[in-house]
């Protein structure tokens, strides 16, 4: 019987953890599946994987996975992860965060982790609002959208996660959706392969809060919107500007190998320092 189960189950903690906390129609479970498949393709030792998260719906992910797992304070996943990675560079550190967690309360840590190019794979689940607290606006809520705290529509412009990460120094930046799962597997695998700071933004539906507040339909309808409203980089290149208006672009925006990771750089600094200070 067990032999016929999907291999994803190898990575799940079964005792006392399920059912999970996520709402019906939430996209986070699909992303967890993608992360598992991507990790599986890397052939890493589970003992060397550290999954770190902050606070929010996405940040509940680590408890279900059979790695070293660290569920931290709101916004601080990357700061905890930086400490763990630098203390033990053998750890493969994966940070999972929501849009509010990573861009609002944790925005400072995101840009500085990118600037340092610390070897952490960062998965940001963007569902356009704070789901766990009941659907308040986040730094990625689209202008005009209704949330529990934007009853008259969102008036602030949002962050473009990929532009922000790339401009701050990340070496790999990609955007996928929970509708395009096979593509998402590849994007996350690409991110895991980097020896530096990599960011994958994943668009996901929050039918319970954001969907309901904006009459976007049920979970299936929201998934279909992800299919219809996004295009790949290749598609975008072929389209005239007026047809690209309002479409969100998926794909790998940045993938560079010319920047050394932080822990590698630190190791070099140690040898250099030892050379500079001659023995007395």
């Amino acid at each position: 019987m067990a032999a016929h189960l999907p291999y994803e189950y190898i990575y799940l903690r079964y005792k006392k953890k399920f059912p999970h906390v996520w709402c019906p129609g939430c996209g986070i479970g699909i992303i967890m599946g993608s992360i598992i498949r991507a990790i599986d393709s890397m052939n890493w030792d589970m003992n060397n994987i550290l999954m770190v998260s902050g606070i929010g719906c996405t940040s509940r992910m680590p408890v279900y996975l059979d790695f070293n797992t660290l569920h931290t304070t709101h916004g601080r996943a990357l700061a905890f992860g930086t400490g763990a990675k630098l203390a033990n560079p053998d750890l493969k550190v994966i940070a999972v965060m929501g849009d509010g967690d990573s861009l609002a309360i944790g925005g400072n840590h995101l840009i500085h982790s990118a600037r340092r190019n610390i070897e952490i794979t960062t998965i940001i689940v963007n569902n356009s609002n704070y789901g766990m607290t009941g659907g308040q606006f986040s730094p990625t809520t689209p202008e005009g959208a209704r949330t529990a705290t934007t009853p008259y529509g969102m008036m602030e412009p949002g962050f473009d996660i990929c532009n922000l990460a790339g401009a701050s120094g990340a070496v790999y930046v990609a955007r996928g959706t929970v509708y395009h799962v096979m593509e998402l597997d590849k994007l996350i695998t690409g991110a895991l392969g980097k020896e530096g700071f990599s960011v994958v933004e994943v668009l996901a539906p929050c039918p319970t809060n954001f969907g309901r507040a904006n009459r976007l339909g049920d979970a299936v309808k929201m998934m279909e919107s992800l299919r219809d409203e996004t295009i790949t980089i290749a598609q975008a290149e072929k389209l005239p500007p007026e047809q690209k208006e309002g479409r969100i672009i998926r794909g790998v925006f940045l993938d560079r190998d010319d920047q050394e990771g932080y822990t590698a750089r630190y190791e070099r600094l140690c040898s250099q320092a030892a050379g500079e200070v001659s023995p007395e």
Partner: protein
Amino acid sequence: MSGVPWGETRLVQGNEAVALGALAAGVDFFAGYPITPSTEVAEVLAKEMPLIGGKWIQMEDEIASISAIIGASLAGARTLTATSGPGFSLMQEGLGYACMTEVPVVVVNVMRAGPSTGLPTQVSQGDVMQARWGTHGDHPVIAIAPCSIAECFYMTIKAFNLAEMFRTPVILLPDEVIGHMRERFTFPLREEVQVLPLSEPNVPVEWYEHYHQTASGVSPMARFGKGYRFHVTGLTHDVHGFPTRRIDEVVPKMNRLKQKITRRLDDLEQNDLHGVDESRLTIFAYGSVYRSAMAARDILAKKKKKVGVFRPVTIWPFPDRTVKEKLDDKDVVVVCELNQGQLIHEVERLTSDSVRVVPLQRYDGYGITPEQIVSKVMEVM
């Protein structure tokens, strides 16, 4: 200079002694953010740690610093951060996280005058209550306050040992005068320093409980990357570290957090008592003020006035038993503090109405002088 100058005699600054004490204790991870008057701790370690393969990082703020040392500690490092008032405020959520998740870390808070930016370069003891109750919720705290350069060195080592023994954050509370003053200090020989090894689980992986219930309330802790694959969360958790709301798991966790400190007060409590039993009046002082208290005691002795000095070395847990035992029969206790009255409330709580508890407080950014203590004593004696 490079490393700890074992066995040598030097003129050493307080913050420098803290950094060298940390090196003596085998610190291998420091994360911090520059703030007066604690920066020398970070500066000395920035120079020393790369030379011994230690990890040193300047984070983007104090929140990131405390987060990084907790992450590093879980990944197998002996960790330290150093800060002062405003930075200590920013660290409070992280401190609570370390209390809840039972991660050993050492936090140095060189106390400066507040509130807010206050008097950044000047002395205060205004953070003793913040050290106790700064983070939200009931939680255990260990805080110790050095009063000399030797103590900056030895108490930093002790802070690391206590953090490991109790699996909890330990706060070192020098005030600015202690952090910035210099004294002659003879470093011990390497073999004279005792450092507890980092704990390791003594059971196979499948038997391991990250928060195993033991008689002492503390169980050996596994680190990430060693095969144990445990979960850590700030949510209230069961013995494995998994979130729980079950009353039969929440209450034992909360009780254990408290009792791991209260059941081992003998291992924690440390006081310096001078002539307390032989006098009707006792001066209660800690940190740099203790030095003035001792000088005042000498001046008063020359005037044929006998007074005692009571100094709590361990500030938290507060030495309830000893204060009650030693001070409850006094006529007068003069509580000298560089704040508007913080530990005085603890002394009042523990003494009967027959004891006059008199404050001597200074909060203008300057220390309490021996002369001030002498005149206060003459006034109330």
